[in-house]
């Protein structure tokens, strides 16, 4: 239904009329209305339309300040975020191990050293994720059936201690520094080292903000399916214990320790270190922010000979 044009509402049709955009019944109604209202017809007939032209000489002076630094990798989904965690975390831990060795005290605040190291390497603001790949050491090589996706599949388990020399050869401590040709400030290091029975995978890159630190233990297993054998190195061992530690730079919020709160390094399967702001953003603060009742605020890394209390919890 076409709105009847009158002296009250004619203005909403006037600009389209002047610009020649009215057509059909609306145009006819407008012409009829103007014939009945000669004063308004005169007004429109005499009206000249002036259009402004943008002054291209006016530019925003601080444009560069608005821009964001391009990170070498941006997760676009959960998988990407996880992948980022898997790729990035390791540097803190392994650099620490390289620097301090396993026999030394291993306080959480030793992670303090990492940003300095990174700065020396290339003014890196770290976003590190540490992933510990732990080969299954609970049994000798053998087969067992496990359920995956509703199917029973045959899994061959390897005990890496039997191939320690070979693994050490493969994962020799030999950092491979890769620089980004397009952006010399960006680089990544990928490094794998053998720590007794654990394989530590390390990599890091220059990114803008600290987001998270993750340490996860992964099972190195071979899955036999049909006639072919497929290696699955990324299968995560079911998380048995989780420790959430925030580095001093991003202020610890909580430690979640199961089974009394003591974690031996050999038993350690996962550490997530997440910035409080990031936790809040992800809506995970509630999930991660509570220390279980009865949990001891001591963390023992059995391989390290010493027991320590992280600064963050010492005062509690």
């Amino acid at each position, binding site marked *: 239904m076409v709105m009847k044009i009158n002296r009250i509402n004619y203005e*909403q049709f006037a600009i389209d009329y002047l610009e020649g955009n009215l057509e059909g019944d609306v145009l006819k109604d407008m012409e009829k209305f103007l014939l009945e209202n000669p004063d308004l017809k005169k007004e429109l007939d005499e009206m000249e*339309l*002036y259009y402004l032209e943008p002054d291209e000489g006016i530019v*925003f002076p601080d444009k560069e300040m608005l*821009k*964001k*630094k391009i990170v070498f990798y941006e997760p676009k989904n959960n998988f990407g975020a996880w992948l980022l965690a898997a790729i990035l975390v390791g540097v803190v831990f392994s650099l620490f191990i390289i620097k301090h060795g396993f026999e030394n005290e291993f306080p959480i605040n030793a992670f303090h050293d990492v940003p300095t190291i990174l700065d020396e390497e290339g003014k890196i603001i770290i976003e590190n994720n540490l992933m510990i790949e732990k080969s299954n050491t609970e049994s000798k090589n053998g087969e067992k059936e496990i359920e995956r996706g509703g199917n029973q599949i045959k899994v061959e388990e390897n005990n890496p201690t039997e191939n320690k020399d070979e693994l050490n050869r493969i994962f020799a401590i030999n950092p491979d520094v890769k620089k980004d040709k397009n952006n010399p400030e960006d680089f990544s290091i990928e490094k794998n080292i053998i720590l007794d029975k654990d394989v530590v995978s390390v990599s890091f890159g220059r990114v803008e903000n600290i987001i998270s630190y993750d340490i996860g233990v992964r099972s190195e297993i071979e899955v036999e399916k049909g006639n072919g054998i497929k290696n699955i190195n990324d299968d995560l061992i079911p998380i048995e214990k989780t420790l959430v530690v925030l580095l001093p730079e991003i202020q610890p919020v909580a430690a979640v320790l199961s089974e009394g709160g003591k974690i031996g390094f050999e038993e350690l399967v996962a550490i997530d270190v997440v910035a409080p702001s990031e936790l809040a953003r992800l809506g995970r603060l509630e999930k991660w922010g509570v220390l279980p009742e009865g949990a001891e605020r001591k963390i023992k890394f059995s391989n390290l000979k010493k027991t320590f209390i992280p600064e963050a919890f010492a005062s509690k």
Partner: protein
Amino acid sequence: MTSEEYNIIVEKHADHLFRFALKSTRNEADARDIVQLSFEKFWKKHQEVDFSKAKSYLFTTAHRTHIDMVRKNKRITVMEELPDNGNRISANRYELRDFLELALGQLSDIQKKVVLLRDYEGYAYKEIATITGISESQVKVYIFRARKKLQQILIRMEKTG
């Protein structure tokens, strides 16, 4: 939207947004603040905003930011005074474009904005309605009145000049 795409948006639209803000506020510091705040808000939402909708999002944000700024500061919008007879505009010094710029200052905030969005950015009336949060019919009325007023001001300038 990635950081890279965000930076493209900055490169592409920051100047346009600044011109819009500057002409709307007639105050460079305020215009800078509006651009800065608009992009800050945009960055917070950059993962949700579609690349193709970025420009509209920015102009909508700039418009709202300006409104908030005016409310917060309880500013009274003062129409710019046209030069009086003692300071007459000389046709030799000013081109039509300059007259129009001066005349623009005589429009109300909303008239100014709809005309700027239409003329500077080439937005359709419907898009302007979305950005400014008013109906398309209202946009057309404001633009008609603004054009009428611009013409009247120009005629007046011509007479006094």
